């Protein structure tokens, strides 16, 4: 297993070389620009909007990294034929999959951590320099970390999806499938009550089955609750995080199996 961290660090270094972290500059400009403009547009809702914007941007930027880097983790190695030199080393194939995954999760983790610091910095600036406040939740609310933590786990899940698809399909198709699953996962709650509106009972059962198979990504979205100062119990956080970990494992196991059986000749 010592190969896994080694591969992960290399993936992280590669993402730095690929200038993935340039998105942080865009994030910083977006937040700083918004903190200046929003005060003049929103009739006193500055803090809510900066929180909404910061949390949503963390998710969206992370999503782009998860999908577009995730789908290339395996396929790029194959295209560049560097996979052969990797396979020639005393490394198991499943270790390559896990290492690649861990590397991208590390990249996303660092990204989310820096964005979190930037969001708190902008909120601190708004509180102390501009004197804005909020009646719903504290400006520098520690509960924001709950939303950011679940966003990170959601991004890890999307990364696992992208990696899973990339082990057996082309990059373009992998991106389409991952994005499709992401959208379906965000809307999966609607499937639960489909049998109430469908005339066919078989159709309703299929919808129910799809509901249980799709990742429930909306469960990771507690941004609105946190911004409005509503409680997000620790039990909810723990169960949602555990669900995410299980789902990620359920994706990485077949990804490793498929990759192990794949013929690269």
């Amino acid at each position: 297993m010592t190969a896994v961290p080694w591969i992960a660090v290399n993936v992280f270094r590669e993402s730095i070389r690929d200038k993935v972290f340039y998105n942080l500059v865009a994030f910083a400009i977006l937040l700083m620009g918004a903190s200046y403009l929003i005060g003049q547009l929103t009739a006193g809702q500055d803090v809510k909007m900066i929180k909404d914007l910061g949390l949503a941007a963390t998710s969206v930027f992370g999503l782009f990294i998860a999908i577009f880097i995730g789908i290339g983790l395996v396929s790029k190695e194959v295209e560049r034929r560097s996979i052969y030199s990797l396979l020639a080393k005393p490394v198991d194939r499943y270790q390559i999959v896990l290492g690649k995954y861990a590397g991208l999760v590390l990249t996303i983790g660092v990204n989310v951590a820096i964005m979190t610091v930037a969001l708190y910095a902008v909120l601190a600036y708004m509180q102390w320099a501009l004197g804005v406040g909020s009646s719903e939740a504290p400006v520098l609310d520690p509960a924001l970390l709950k939303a950011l933590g679940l966003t990170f786990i959601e991004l890890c899940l999307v990364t696992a999806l992208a990696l899973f698809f990339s082990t057996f399909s082309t990059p373009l198709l992998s991106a389409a499938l991952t994005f499709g699953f992401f959208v379906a996962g965000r809307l999966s709650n609607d499937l639960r009550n489909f049998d109430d509106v469908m005339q066919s009972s078989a159709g309703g059962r299929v919808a129910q089955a799809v509901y249980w198979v799709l990742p429930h990504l909306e469960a990771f979205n507690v941004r609105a609750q946190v911004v409005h100062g509503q409680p997000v119990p620790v039990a909810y956080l723990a169960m949602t995080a555990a669900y995410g970990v299980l789902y990620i494992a359920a994706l990485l196991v077949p990804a490793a199996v498929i990759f192990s059986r794949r013929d690269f000749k």
Partner: protein
Amino acid sequence: MLTAVAVGVLMAAAAGLQLVRERTAALSNQHEETLYLTSGKALRAITIGYAALAADVYWIRAIQHFGGKHVGRTSDFPLLYPLLDLTTTLDPHFSIAYRFGSIFLGEPSPGGAGRPDLAIALLQKGIREMPDKWEYVVDIGFVHYWWRHDFVEAAAWFERASHLPKAPSWLPSMAATTLARGGDRASSRRMWEALRESADNDWLRGSADRALMQLRALDEMDQLQQVVNRMAANGGAFRITGQVAQINGRVIVDPTGVPYEVDTAGRVHLGKQSTLAPLPTQAGSQNAPVS
């Protein structure tokens, strides 16, 4: 270096051309503001989990719609309710949107949309989402009181609000006063002061401040009218200088600092520049509960 200069020159040329086109060949920009998506549920699905951010966008649009029409002196706000409805469907806990709607949907033209029914509908939507939010219940009472002049209904809503958790202690007495003396200037003032105290943003506070200044102006105009009448009866120690009310050389100004005017018939009214017009009792206004 050469590339940078070339890019700079080309960008400057493009911007210059744009400026010339805007000045000389601008297309007509008159078009109706349109809402392309009117279903909050559909919009919620489309936003795939970023509904709160979309609510912020619709909130900004509602403010722009209202503010833009105000600046343009247009008193028609056809999109105000749909925009606030979308905002609150996308983010059902967007408190300011309900409270903003309660004031500016209910207020008659030119200050608002003149639709107290929609103001109440929006607040009732808020109560469905947050049944313990006493502020929304008070706001419905306020709409009945101020814009519908239905003091019995208003008192019933204040009474209902008083039973909710965290409701302020003054609500039961306000319900009783409204029922007993609904419509007088003192209870109107109390109402606006209560709204101002519970306001959590500058727009609502500003609206309450303006209403309180209007009530103060009405009191001052009554006093001034008495002075004018007395002076006129005593042979005219009072004088009119370019219609500006002056007593003993002192210009009498309204709460915004604009001098009151006295017409040739000796009637006191607000100066033409005053932003407090129209006052609740003036013709054309439906804000008539003050006596």
